């Protein structure tokens, strides 16, 4: 584990330096990233210019959901390197190079193509989160104050698990990147809206099957004093770290299995 973090830092550092060799491009894409991800929120603002509430949620409350989802996703995206495009690394054969180095492969893939441009999404999410926490009508308690950072970090870990599992799946099916995108980008977009907007079956699915609900829906309901989706018991708001740990363990297992079945390319 420590060895993995050390390798991750080294590889990510190399990519940061690589990225810095194209300074103008870096600045432009960082800014572009900020604007592009911000457009999602502009969409929500536009919607609220027509309605006062969405399924009973006010603008600051939806903004809180939105920001929690974007921030968690942004952290995971920043930390998961080229896991999304692992299939292309495998197809062009460069994955083999990672396998003959004396450090964990997952750490290398996580640090691979590490890009500070991805801070754009994170910064935007963080800014909206700050505004929402001030603007929303929240009855603050100590446990709620603690729950907010816990929610963001656990949410990020859940997304990382999805990225890792997706990367493992791409070892089997190298063109499966789009399947993964449905869960990651699809997931983060879905979590930006109150659960009541969606059908019951979908909410059940993202609670019990792929537990994305624990990224923000469940803990946010507690912070905002809203009823839980699916009438879950009160303590589940604090279950996000456990859920995240479980997801990461399963993803790690999937990764090991995937790696063992790796077939490489023909030459």
């Amino acid at each position, binding site marked *: 584990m420590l060895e993995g973090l050390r390798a991750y830092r080294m590889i990510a550092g190399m990519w940061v330096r690589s990225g810095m060799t194209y300074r103008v491009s870096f600045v432009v894409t960082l800014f572009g990233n900020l604007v592009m991800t911000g457009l999602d929120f502009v969409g929500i603002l536009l919607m609220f210019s027509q309605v006062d509430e969405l399924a009973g949620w006010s603008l600051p409350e939806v903004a809180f959901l939105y920001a929690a989802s974007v921030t968690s996703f942004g952290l995971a995206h920043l930390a998961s390197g080229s896991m999304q495009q692992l299939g292309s690394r495998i197809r062009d054969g*460069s994955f*083999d190079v990672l396998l*003959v180095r*004396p450090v964990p492969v997952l750490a290398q893939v996580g640090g691979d193509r590490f890009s500070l441009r991805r801070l754009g999404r994170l910064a935007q999410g963080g800014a909206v989160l700050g505004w929402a926490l001030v603007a929303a009508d929240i009855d603050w308690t100590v446990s709620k104050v603690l729950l907010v950072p816990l929610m963001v970090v656990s949410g990020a870990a859940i997304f990382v698990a999805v990225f890792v599992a997706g990367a493992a799946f791409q070892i089997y099916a190298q063109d499966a990147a789009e399947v993964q995108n449905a869960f990651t980008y699809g997931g983060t977009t879905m979590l930006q809206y109150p659960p009541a907007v969606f059908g019951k079956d979908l909410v059940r699915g993202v609670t019990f099957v792929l537990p994305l609900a624990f990224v923000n829906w469940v803990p946010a309901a507690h912070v905002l004093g809203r009823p839980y989706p699916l009438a879950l018991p009160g303590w589940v708001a604090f279950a996000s770290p456990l859920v995240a740990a479980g997801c990461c363990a399963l993803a790690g297992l999937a990764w090991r299995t995937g790696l063992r079945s790796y*077939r490489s390319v023909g030459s």
Partner: protein
Amino acid sequence: MSGRMGTTEGSEGAFIEVDGVEKVFDVRRRKGLLRRERHQVRAVDSISFTVARGEMVGYIGPNGAGKSTTIKMLTGILTPSGGRLRVAGIDPSRERTRLAHRIGVVFGQRTTLWWDLPLIDSYKLMHRMYRIPDARYRENLARLVELLDLGDLLEVPVRQLSLGQRMRGDIAAALLHDPEVLYLDEPTIGLDVVSKTRVREFLRQVNAERATTVLLTTHDLQDIEQVCSRVMVIDHGRLVYDGALAGLHEVGEGERTLVVDLEREFPPVEVPAPARVVRVDGPRQWVAFPASEPAAGLVTRIAERYPLVDLSVREPDIEAVIAQMYAERAGRAPTQSS
């Protein structure tokens, strides 16, 4: 972490042990719109060999013969489907990371170097990643820079290097941590003649200085002729030859050619089978005979009956021998079907 770790090595001197190793791939082929047919491909079919410490071995075969698959199993990238494999006493696929400290790998068509950064940055990463002791790193780097003539290239971003320069850079990167064995997969592919010569010279030098075991795959038989004392030929996943380069002629049932110049034009000279005249051009005739037989008898026989002016014996070129070997195998046993 420096120096040799106390591993138990199998039999005396055998650094690489490959015993009945095979690799079977499941291949699904589309048949019709939805139907898929599954069948198995034996990329490597029960191969056995050992390599002693310090040997330089060439591994050759046509495309798809199983060369790369073998290298990938030896480095732990692929898990064998059967058989036993040990490198320095380590099972590569089970302890890939531990083995990585003791091996160097150069993939001719991929690089381990950082594209956008100066060459030296990639070496600094190796330094930290392999935990190479500082003094050892400086010493190795200096020596590799000298031998591979990298001095002017260290500060150049890798993307600006020529293919030959990049290859030299990659080879240096693979040797910084003092690996006991160096695998090179097509190390001279795409290089010009000068670069090829340089790489070959360097490999001989490293082997002489550090007794590094070298295993290289190639399509270029000159790589083998100039670097390797031993050659292994693989075809359809099977080892069809393993021995000295010189011996390949006999196994390949190659033929040597006796070129005779007679006083004047003659019809094809009479020679005992299997020798035969393959070409006549004025007074000069070419007689092919098995490489394993001495030329003396044939020469005497021709000299007795014809006015012989001059003669020379041509060795078969290795390329022709191997081509013939593949052709014969293909004729004898059609593709390994499953």
